[in-house]
């Protein structure tokens, strides 16, 4: 029932991609997205895109992800992108590549008594339109596939720790990075528990004749209420336990906390952090 949520999709594994630190993967993804965005200004230069996608494909292969699974999850995005194609093609001004139409659409016997002709077009496809569609489609796809690979191969906790480490310099400007990090980590830790609990509660109530899928809006809201009461109650109880447990261990956010998953960068991390920018930057400036 609740397992269609996009969170918690981490799939345990031992591949080199799994073993990379979360912040390495985050930095690489940010770098690739930025580079592709910058490369957008050089019209019809594919170097950065080809390099980025080759690296991404390589990473997907190394991580041994199930391509069928990835395809099922990105079907919707692809459909959305395809819907956007005619608009981006037709609505970008600039030098013309080709003009389509105008096409006259005939509807015979529309409304049973009239023949109607609707003129469509002319559609002017510009070079800029084509490039815009290709480059932004590529950036979207890159971000989507990249973040999917990231969440598939990184535990949510490691991810939160990675983000926290990357944001640590902001502490100098008085931002409560550590506190936020702890909050995120704790929430992430309990999201699966809460989902599981909600599922159990729903099952228990369905067993007693509740129906969560039909009925009027008010009826459904009322049923949701009967779900929330024990859920919130459980969460509060757990929060109270957790805070006593943290207190009992003398936990405070006054010192720099050591992190469980995000250790020092390894050799592999440094290699990736060096190789990826060099390869893609070379491809950007030298190729095509």
């Amino acid at each position: 029932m609740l397992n269609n949520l996009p969170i918690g999709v981490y799939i345990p594994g031992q591949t080199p991609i799994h073993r990379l630190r979360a912040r390495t993967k985050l930095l690489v993804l940010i770098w690739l997205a930025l580079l592709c965005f910058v490369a957008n200004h050089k019209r019809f230069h594919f170097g950065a895109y080809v390099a980025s996608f080759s690296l991404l494909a390589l990473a997907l292969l190394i991580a041994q992800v199930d391509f069928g699974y990835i395809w099922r999850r990105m079907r919707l995005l692809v459909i959305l992108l395809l819907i956007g194609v005619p608009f981006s093609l037709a609505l970008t001004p600039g030098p013309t590549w080709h003009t389509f139409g105008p096409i006259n659409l005939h509807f015979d016997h529309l409304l049973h008594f009239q023949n109607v002709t609707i003129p469509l077009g002319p559609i002017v496809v510009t070079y800029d339109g084509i490039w815009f569609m290709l480059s932004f489609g590529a950036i979207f796809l890159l971000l989507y596939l990249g973040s999917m690979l990231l969440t598939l191969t990184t535990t949510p906790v490691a991810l939160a720790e990675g983000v926290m480490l990357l944001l640590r310099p902001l502490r100098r400007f008085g931002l409560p990075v550590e506190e936020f990090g702890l909050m995120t980590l704790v929430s992430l830790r309990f999201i699966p528990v809460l989902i599981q609990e909600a599922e159990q509660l729903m099952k228990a109530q369905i067993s007693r004749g509740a129906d969560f899928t039909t009925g009027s809006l008010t009826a459904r809201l009322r049923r949701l209420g009967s779900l929330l009461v024990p859920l919130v109650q459980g969460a509060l109880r757990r929060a109270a336990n957790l805070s006593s447990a943290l207190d009992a261990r003398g936990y405070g956010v006054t010192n720099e906390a050591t992190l469980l998953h995000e250790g020092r960068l390894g050799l592999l991390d440094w290699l990736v952090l060096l190789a990826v920018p060099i390869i893609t930057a070379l491809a950007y400036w030298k190729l095509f």
Partner: protein
Amino acid sequence: MSVGISIEHLTHIYNPRTPTARTALHDITMQIEAASCTAIVGVTGSGKTTLVQHFNGLLKPTEGSVRVGDIEVTSDRTRSADLRKLRRRVGLLFQFPEAQLFAPTIYDDVAFGPRQLGLAEAVIRMRVIRALDAVALDTSSEFLQRSPFALSGGQRRRVALAGVLAMRPQVLVLDEPSAGLDAEARNELYARLAELRANDGLTLVFISHDMAEVAALADRVFVMAGGELRLSGAPEDLFRQPDDLIACGLVPPPLAQVTRLAQEHGWPAQPQHFTPEQVATALAAGISSASHSSLSQAASGSPLPRTGEGPGVGASNHNHHMQGGADAE
């Protein structure tokens, strides 16, 4: 009036077609007789909960079918009217149900099910009171208006059971009903279940980790291991051959082990004696028939007579007698 459950080649896969897919049940075929009391046992994670959640259509088979009376659930689309009927017919008490109470008062919580059936308030009230009565809880209007969260854990579990009973199911499925209860609360629960069975002809199915409990209550046991059905049979047959049970990660009830070990030493008790009453009567019979020949031996330091036909005959006679008694219950 009683209905049974018949399961054919049931396979269940969680999160099918994703990388986290997990086969929790594999090709299970079993029959649960109408008006019987069936125990499902197995180590943690062997798929017991997954199995019983098929009994009322909460989970749908990935392959195979589950039939309860005239309603059949398969992997195809089952009509939601059928599912509603099935859930009314099969009541399911969840693992640790006390955490699932939610209504502001005990009355509202127990009345939740009947209200979903759209009954009149007077009828609902009657059902609530009968259900609370069946689990030996107070039915005074003062108690009914109390918050379920002010009760003890054991009392809350009884409220939850009353909530299931108020649906008037024909089959009652209990997922580890006695886990975490003290001895008295357990005995209380067993007595209630026996009463329900005798009065309403309920078909009972329960999951348990306590073999002594299984021995005392069930007339048929199914042993799960690794998502498969490994063994099934009457408890006395299963406990007589403990090796198969041990291979599934389980141990026979302590008294069955005692009688088996004692028998190896020639003591008159049989391995199928595993309730305190059975063992006590067997021992008493053995002692009385053996007293003339072996009491002197016992006094001289050999408490376990290795020879003598007498005790064996006495015990097996007694065994017949005991089984007759159990049937009559």
